[in-house]
């Protein structure tokens, strides 16, 4: 039991780290040139700091406020008895709670809500389950099928990300002499959670028809990892390169080796389902079929180790900075832990297991930025394009006028995303806010949220 609790705490911790800097969020997730981007391109370790501004402050857990202030998502009344949440007049909505609790870094403006299912003729949310001899169909009151997918992040294990550790939660860079640098990091991320019907069940729920000898299942996919990383690199400015027509270009190159010690890891795919007989019917006495594997490492039961090499180059000419980073140019990772296997029955077989990878599975990151002085204030424009497990890219800008900052961006990263943000730099503090968006679970509308970070300078 305590092991299960440990795994859950670890998964939650990884979930929180989906957080991105608020300044970057305001530009749709754009990463600008500068030493902060050294984990994506080691040449930035030698690049002057602050040229394109920097992320200031810590992101505040605004979601806690949303959770408690909104009666639909506030679980506190349950402290005086569960019935305070579950009685007919209680405003509590599990869907709203789920949406806000999985976005604790943002105050959601319009979280997912069961109100989307309100039948105007009865006044309460209604879900219809249509049952006939050949199948079952789940719809809203108007008869539209309800998608049953719940997900967070993208599930990815060692097999897909190789020795790429997630973005560090905390990174302590140290500059040594002779262009050498050293960094210590704590990472917890790579978090993915997906709960969805399998293809046969998806089709059956839409058509209401069951096929013979078919397994209808719900599939749970999860992934997460946490550990400590140590990076050691070399980055330097090369002699300026004269380029015809462009003038002189400043060049920076860098390489970085990273070793990590992994504390916790989870990679699982479990399906729970029922098999139809040759007539396309379910035997009511048939036990559910469990299939899949889960591999986990927790402190005290296995660990992880990995090394990888990253390379990068940055060029600056005519006020435009362009950088290309290649991470995991060569990488090795190995995790040892416990492997659970379900081969039909609900109790898994448990054995020692390991996950490892070795090879050239590079992740690319290209970014560029420039500053445009305006008559009043300054405009900073940038773009990036990357490939890790899939292609992503963003363009964005920041307008500075005195202590005020206005930001906007547009990008694609598992779907279209846009950013809108603002910041204020006051004496001794800085405040940043950004508008966030995500797709609501189950009901599918676009949910807007506000992320805030506060920085204090003493």
């Amino acid at each position, binding site marked *: 039991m305590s092991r299960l609790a440990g795994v859950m705490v670890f998964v939650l911790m990884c979930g929180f780290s989906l957080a991105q800097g608020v300044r970057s969020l305001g530009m749709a997730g754009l990463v600008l040139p500068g030493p902060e981007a050294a984990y994506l391109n080691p040449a930035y370790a030698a690049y002057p700091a602050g040229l394109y501004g920097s992320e200031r402050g810590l992101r505040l857990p605004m979601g806690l406020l949303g959770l408690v202030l909104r009666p639909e998502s506030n679980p506190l009344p349950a402290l005086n008895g569960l019935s305070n949440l579950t009685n007919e007049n209680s405003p509590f909505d599990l869907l709203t709670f789920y949406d806000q609790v999985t976005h604790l870094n943002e105050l959601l403006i319009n979280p997912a809500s*069961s109100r989307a299912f309100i039948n105007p003729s009865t006044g309460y949310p*209604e*879900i219809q*389950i249509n049952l006939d001899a050949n199948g079952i169909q789940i719809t809203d009151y108007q008869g539209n099928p309800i998608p049953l997918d*719940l997900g967070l992040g993208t599930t990815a294990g060692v097999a897909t990300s190789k020795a790429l550790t997630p973005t560090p939660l905390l990174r302590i860079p140290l500059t040594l002499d002779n262009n050498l640098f050293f960094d210590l990091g704590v990472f917890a991320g790579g978090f993915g959670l997906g709960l969805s019907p399998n293809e046969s069940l998806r089709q059956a729920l839409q058509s209401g028809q069951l096929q013979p000898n078919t397994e*209808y299942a719900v599939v749970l996919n999860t992934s997460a990892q946490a550990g400590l990383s140590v990076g050691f690199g070399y980055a330097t400015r090369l002699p300026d390169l004269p380029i015809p027509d462009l003038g002189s270009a400043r060049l920076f190159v860098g390489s970085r080796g990273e070793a990590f010690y992994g504390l916790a890891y989870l990679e699982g795919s479990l399906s729970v*389902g029922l098999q139809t007989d040759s007539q396309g019917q379910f035997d009511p006495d048939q036990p559910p079929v469990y299939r899949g594997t889960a591999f986990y490492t927790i402190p005290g039961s296995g660990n992880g180790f990995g090394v990888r090499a990253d390379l990068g180059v940055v060029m600056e000419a005519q006020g435009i900075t362009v950088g290309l980073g290649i991470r995991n140019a060569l990488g090795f990772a190995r995790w040892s832990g416990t492997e659970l296997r379900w081969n039909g029955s609900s109790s898994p077989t448990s054995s020692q297991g390991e996950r490892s990878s070795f090879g050239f599975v590079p992740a690319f990151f290209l970014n560029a930025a420039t500053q445009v002085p305006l008559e009043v204030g300054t405009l900073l424009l940038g773009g990036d394009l990357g490939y890790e497990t899939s292609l992503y890219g963003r363009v964005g800008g920041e307008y500075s006028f005195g202590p005020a900052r206005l930001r906007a961006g547009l990008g694609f990263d598992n779907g279209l995303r846009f950013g809108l943000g603002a910041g204020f730099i006051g004496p001794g503090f800085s405040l940043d806010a950004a508008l966030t968006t995500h797709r609501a679970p189950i009901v599918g509308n676009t949910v807007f949220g506000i992320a805030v970070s506060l920085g204090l300078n003493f």
Partner: protein
Amino acid sequence: MPRLAFITLLLLLAGCSASTRYTINVNVLSFIPQSQRSLNIPTGYYLVVYPGLEGQLVPLPLSLDILEGGQITIQGTVTNTGSILMSGNYEIRLAPESDTNLGDNSGGDVGLGKTNFSVAAGQSQAISTTVTLSATENSAAFNIIKSGSFRIAIRVEVNSNGGRFDLTTARVRVTGRPFAVIK
């Protein structure tokens, strides 16, 4: 089926507020084979429990005390192929899964929605009955449905010299509030 439905219900709880109602629509007719959806009525006095004394089992996936109400709808056609007036009545019979005789008023079976009909010689007449089940209306039948899977049948009583009874709709609809399970 019950377990599949249970898994689906668990999933759906994520889309559920304290006031959300689930409506389960069971198409009872689809469980009756095509060949048995039509009943031939012989000459004379005829009393039958259709589609059989043990009724049709309706596999309701919930046996929870969360149901607030229900509705049974029966629609069909009565055809008089004889030369004299056909008169009679029909009644919906409901019983718990354990009762396999829906015509003896013992073991739990109850009758509801009794409807009279009379059809002129050579004519057809559409019939339609909807009964509402709740804690105050038809409460005995409501309690049967609340207990989970149940049996349903139609008791037909006719005086004629020949005809047919065709069933076109047989639906049971129950509504419940899943959060009521947590008290």
